[in-house]
Structures are given as structure tokens and as C-alpha cells.
């Protein structure tokens, strides 16, 4: 019988369906930002290799270096909300997994800081750096990819209550990565290759906005971005099926006909991604929209994988609910005002013409 910590006696602060929606929605935003970051930093690191010989590659490198710190900032900030909601709904499983993986889990903090400062170094190019920007870019990329790997370990271990007690009894060193799990590698690759693809799409769109400022860089970014989007998207389909078949039978069955809704959502996500790839050349805006919806559906699928995997050890639908309606209303109001403020600031920024080209 797996060990499952007792639920928090305070109860859920809202009906679980609201919390689940917020969890899936905010995680989608986080993952989209993460995709721009991971895809962008990888493309920048690779462009860096050719900088010495190819001046255009150098300009591409610089342009990406200017864009990336913001994506890091957004990835972190947008990651806070889903982490909050997962702790509310799935705290019993989440805390257990993170405590078992304690030290690598904690290492995420310095790794993020390292990767982040690396990105700023690439942007500001202080004089002591000399010609070593590429090295810094690679270090940033590796730190960021390592963060993703630890995350995948925690999220997969969280789904396997049956092994927790054995891991705990085998020693409380807090170094228990979930390496033996068959879903670990496909799941990690699924996220990373997906990020290459969506990141490519974003780089392509960035290229389009630079048409008047720097035609050459604009063309280079668009071509490279589209290639990444399509190639990584193709590979992603294969990895997706690998991941699907690595899941335990009970979980997989829901997505291959066992549950009509689950299967439908997954299929729609796949179809939208394929349509996005088909239309990207002629209608890039539509491709971006479809990709966004596809990611949302995939995050929904991810949520269902968790719910089915944890059944019957943790059934969040049966948790006690003590709704705090008044505060929920305040939150929604603050969110709307906050989003309006952000929209105003971004519009004001875009309206203002840059005084210096590029």
C-alpha cells in the first residue's frame, strides 16, 4: 500500500475544477515562455559556433542575445502561478517527490541564476568577456536544459507513489532522481524538442518584425526559425508516440480510445500542431495561434496523465473544499486590472518609435 501524506486539513480554497483550470492555463503560459527561452538559447548557442567566420551568424547571435533575458524573466514569473496551484491541488504528491529529490531540486535555483546571468552577459557583452560569448551562451543553455531535466524527474516521481516508501527507506540523502522510470527520457525529450519547435516559430516571427530594420538578419531568422519549427515538430511527433507508449497501460488506454474525451483532446492537439506546420509559410500568425491552442490541449492531456496515474492513491476530486469566494473575486479583479495595465504598457512601448535602428 503506497504511502500518501494526509491532505491539508485546511481544505481546498475553491472547487477543484477552478483550481485545475487555473493550473492548466497558467502552466500553458509558463511553457510557452519556456519554449521561447529553450528554443532561443539553443539557436543562439549554435549560431555562436559560426560567429568567428560568418558575420551574419554573429549578428543573429547578437539579436537573439538581446531578446533572451526577457524570455527567462517571463518563464520564471509565469512559472510561479502553476507551481502554486499544483501545491494546492497535488501537494501531497508534490512535496513528497521534491523532498526525495531534495538536492537536485534545490540546485534548480543556482542553475537558473547561472543561466540567467549568462544570458545577460551575452546581451551586455562586458569588455572583460573578450571573445568568450559563445562559451557563456553554451553554459547558459546547458544550465537551462539541466533545470528542465530535474523538473521532469520531480514530475515523474510525483506520479509513482508506489516507489516512494522504498526510496525513503533506502536512505534519506535527498538525492533520489527518478532515473529508472521508463517515461523519464521520452517525457523530457518531448518537452525539450517541443520547445525547439515552438521556439523556432517565435524566432521566425521575431525575424518578420525586423524586416525594415535589418533585412539580412530578418531573413536569416525567418529561415532558421521556420526550419527549426518544422524539423523539431516532425521529430516531436515521433517522440510523442514514444512517450505515449512508455506510459503504463492503464494510463495510455485512456488516450487511445479508452476515454473519448481524453483521446479527443490529445488527437485535436496533434492535428492542430500538424495543421500549424502545414500553414506556417503562408499564414504564420494562424500557425502561431494553432500552436498556442495545441500547447494548451497538450497541457490538459498532461494534467489527465497525472490524475489517472495517481488514481486511486490520490483522488483530488474528493478533497475537502472550503471555498474563499470573496478572495477569489478579488483575485480575478486584480488579474483583470493587472492584465489591462500590462496591455497598456506594452502598447505604449510598441507605439513609441525606437530612436535607434535595430
Amino acid at each position, binding site marked *: 500500500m503506497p*504511502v*500518501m*501524506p494526509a491532505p*491539508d*486539513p*485546511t*481544505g481546498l480554497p*475553491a472547487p477543484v475544477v477552478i483550481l485545475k483550470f*487555473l493550473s492548466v492555463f497558467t502552466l500553458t503560459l509558463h511553457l510557452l515562455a519556456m519554449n521561447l527561452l529553450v528554443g532561443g538559447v539553443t539557436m543562439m548557442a549554435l549560431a555562436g559556433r559560426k560567429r568567428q567566420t560568418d558575420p551574419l551568424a554573429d549578428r543573429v547571435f547578437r539579436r537573439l542575445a538581446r531578446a533572451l*533575458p*526577457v524570455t527567462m*524573466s*517571463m518563464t*520564471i*514569473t509565469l512559472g*510561479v*502561478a502553476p507551481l*502554486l*496551484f499544483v*501545491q*494546492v491541488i497535488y*501537494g501531497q504528491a508534490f*512535496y513528497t517527490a*521534491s*523532498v526525495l529529490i*531534495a538536492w537536485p*531540486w*534545490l540546485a*534548480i*535555483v543556482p542553475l*537558473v*541564476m547561472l543561466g*540567467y*546571468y549568462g544570458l*545577460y552577459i551575452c546581451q551586455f557583452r562586458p569588455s572583460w568577456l573578450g571573445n568568450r560569448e559563445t562559451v557563456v551562451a553554451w553554459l547558459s543553455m546547458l544550465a537551462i536544459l539541466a533545470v528542465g531535466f530535474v523538473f521532469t524527474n520531480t514530475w515523474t516521481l510525483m506520479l509513482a507513489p508506489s516507489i516512494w*516508501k522504498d526510496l525513503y*527507506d*533506502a*536512505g*534519506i*540523502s*535527498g538525492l533520489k532522481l527518478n532515473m529508472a522510470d521508463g517515461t523519464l527520457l521520452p517525457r523530457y525529450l518531448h518537452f525539450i524538442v517541443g520547445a525547439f519547435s515552438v521556439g523556432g516559430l517565435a524566432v521566425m516571427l521575431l525575424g518578420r518584425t525586423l524586416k525594415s530594420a535589418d533585412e539580412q538578419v530578418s531573413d536569416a531568422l525567418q529561415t532558421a526559425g521556420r526550419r527549426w519549427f518544422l524539423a523539431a515538430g516532425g521529430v516531436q511527433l515521433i517522440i510523442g508516440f514514444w512517450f505515449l507508449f512508455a506510459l503504463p497501460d492503464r494510463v495510455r488506454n485512456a488516450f487511445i480510445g479508452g476515454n473519448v474525451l481524453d483521446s479527443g483532446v490529445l488527437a485535436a492537439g496533434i492535428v492542430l500542431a500538424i495543421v500549424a506546420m502545414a500553414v506556417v509559410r503562408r499564414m504564420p500568425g494562424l500557425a502561431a495561434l494553432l500552436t498556442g491552442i495545441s500547447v494548451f490541449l497538450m497541457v490538459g492531456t498532461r494534467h489527465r496523465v497525472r490524475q489517472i496515474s495517481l488514481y486511486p492513491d490520490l483522488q483530488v476530486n474528493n478533497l475537502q473544499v472550503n471555498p*474563499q469566494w470573496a*478572495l*477569489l473575486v*478579488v*483575485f480575478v479583479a*486584480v*488579474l483583470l486590472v*493587472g492584465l489591462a*495595465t*500590462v496591455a497598456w*504598457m*506594452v502598447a*505604449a*512601448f510598441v507605439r*513609441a*518609435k*525606437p530612436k*535607434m535602428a535595430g
Partner: protein
Amino acid sequence: MLIGIIAILHVFVSHFAIGGGLYLVLTEIQARKTNDPDMLDFARKHSTFFILVVLVFGAVSGVGIWWTIALVNPTAVSTLIHVFVWVWAIEWVFFLVELIAAIIYYYGWERMDPATHIKVGWIYVVSAWLSLFMINGILTFMLTPGRWIETQSVADGFFNPTMIPSAILRTAVCVALAGLYALITGTLIRNDEARARIVRWSAKWVMGGIAVLPLAGFWYVAQLPPMARDISMGGAPVVTLFAAGSILFSALVVGGAFIGPYLFPKHVHVTYAFGLAIMGLMATGVTEWVREAVRKPYIIYDYMYSNTLRVKDLGEYSMSGLLTNAKWERPTEADTKSQVRVGRRVFRAQCMACHTVNGFNGMRFAVKGWGREFLDHQILYLNELKGFMPPFIGTDEERAALVEYLLTLNDTEQESDVAAAPAEQKGGL
């Protein structure tokens, strides 16, 4: 320990994030009003420094605190999150707005017209302060949950007795820290006249911020639970010493700011500014340390002890036993034959939130030379003999088992028997 280090650095940076934003905006306004290109140029350069410190270190270390406390004390974090999830979610919105405003302000120097740029700056200041206001409610709740204990109402928990004095204290600290950081970049300005103006202006921030502290501090202390006040005022010498240190370092900062940057702004070197900043860091460090220390033996006052056991469970666990209620440490059949092994499970379930065997708060050292009866007495009256520790929770048998286990720590022969057990004791955070 780790929480402490990350937390102190985070406080030092995040309060600057708020005060520093206000400093930037007011400096920009004044520079534009007086048409002072040097001052404007300084504000622009200072904003680069600001963004590197705040956006990266401030944001990541803040998330880092959450990471660490959730590892060390998941039960307490879970309680805070379940009670305050919407407060946290609201704080997150402010944080999001704050961050985007900071980015747009920074990249908008060349691009936006001054009026809009200043407006974005104000949005930053307001949202940053509001995020402090929200977190402050949760933080003060841990020390003074007030009427929440009876009512379980989020409003009572959030607007708790120390919430307002603490918000004023922290706001004042924000202003002072903004001045301290600005002295670092300000003393690097080449032009003598401009440097003198900005250094003196920054010194005023430091002194003005600290001037508010005594009064607000007095109010804050008056709202503390009696036991916490006693601890800080003589009950526990180390804590009192640190509390005195907090006042001393603050006084040094204010004196240093007056004698150097205020009186002789032209002659202040950047190392002096760094020295003042380090004093400020020390003041922050000891103050936050005292705030944590006076909360003992609780993590949430009157509700949950620092080892995550709830006050209300005390009676029941003393009857039915700690280990029957501890899912991870339920004794196996092999364990039940050895009192020492049961004792180790009790240790892991009850003591390890704060104590390791060999490392931080290490028990091997703490109980060295203690005999069986003395140990038993110490544990039986734990909360009375050591005011900052929770009472022992569990049955008489469990207490006896814990005593036997602790006795083995300095007894090499017995210890090897325990080490042979599958679960190896290595100590945690």
C-alpha cells in the same frame, strides 16, 4: 541555515527592488524638472545595475526561498498555501506587472517620451510595493496569527496584529536600502559636481528611511506575543545580542551616511559606500534572524510547532503514539524488536526538521556526556527547560526509545548495530 542565507540576501535585494524603483522614478523626475543631464544619465546607468540585481537575483532568490522552505517544512508551506492561495495568487499578479514594468522602463529610456516613461516607473513602484504588502501579510501571520486561530478567517490571518507595523518597517527599509545601493553607483560618477549632488541626495534616503524605524519598530515589538518579546529582550541571551546588533548596525549605517556622504559628498569613495552597504546587510541579517528566532518553538504561532506537528494533535499523539500517526516512520517488524531503531524513527519524525546527527544543530554533540536519566528528564520537560523548543510529543515508550537512540550517538559499539539497519542516517538540511 540555507533558508536563512537565501532569505537574508533576498530581503536585502527585494526591499531594494521596491525602494530602488521609487528612487529611480523620483531621480528621473527631478533630473527632468531641473534639466540636469548628469543626473538623468546617472539614473539611466543606475537602472542597468538595478535590473541586473533585481530582476535576476531578487526574483530568483525569492522563488529560491519558496523552494527551500517547501523542502524543509512542506507541512507548514502547505498550510500557508492552502490558507492564503488567493493572497499568493494576487501577489503573483502584482509581481508579474512589476516585472513587465521594470523591463519596459529599462528598455524605454531611449524609446518612450518622458511622461509615459515616468508613468511606467510609477506602475513599477506601486505594483512592487503591493507585492510586498501581500507577502508581508503572510509572513507576519506566521508570527502573530491573531484571531485566525479561533476564526480560521483569511481576513483575520492577513490583517493580523503585526501586519501594519511590519509593512511600515519594511517600507522604511526599502527607502533606506535604495539610498545605500545608489551610493554605490553614485560614488562612481566622474563629474565632481554631479557626484556630490547625487551622493548627498542618496544619503538623505538612507537617513530618512532609518529615521522611521525606531517608532515603527516599537509598535511592532509591542504587538508581539509576550513570550516572543521576552526572548528578544533578555530571555535568550543570543537572541537579545542579535536584537541589539540590529539596532547597532542601523545606527552605524545612519551615522556613516551622515558623516560621509551627507557632510562630505565629494570625498566619498566607492569602498566607503560598499562598507555602508555591508553594514546594511548585517542589519538586515540580524533583524531577520531575530524575527525567525522569536517565533520558536512555533513555525506558525500557537498552531504548528517548528517540527511541523500541530498543536491540536499534541494530546492525541501522546495517547496513541507519534509513530502510529507518522506514515513514513511506521516501525517495521524488525524495528519493533529494537528500542534503538524505534527511537531513531521517533528522531526522524519529530526532531529532524531542525536537528541533524552530526551537522547543523547536531545531536551527537548536544547530548555528549548525558546519562539516561538526565536525557529522559530533558526530553520530558523539553519545552519548559528550553523555551524555544516544542514539547516532546509521543507516548512514554516512544520517549524511552528516543533516549536509547540518543544514547547510542556517543557509544560507538551500539551505533554500529544501528548503522547496519537498512535506513542509513546521513543527516539532512
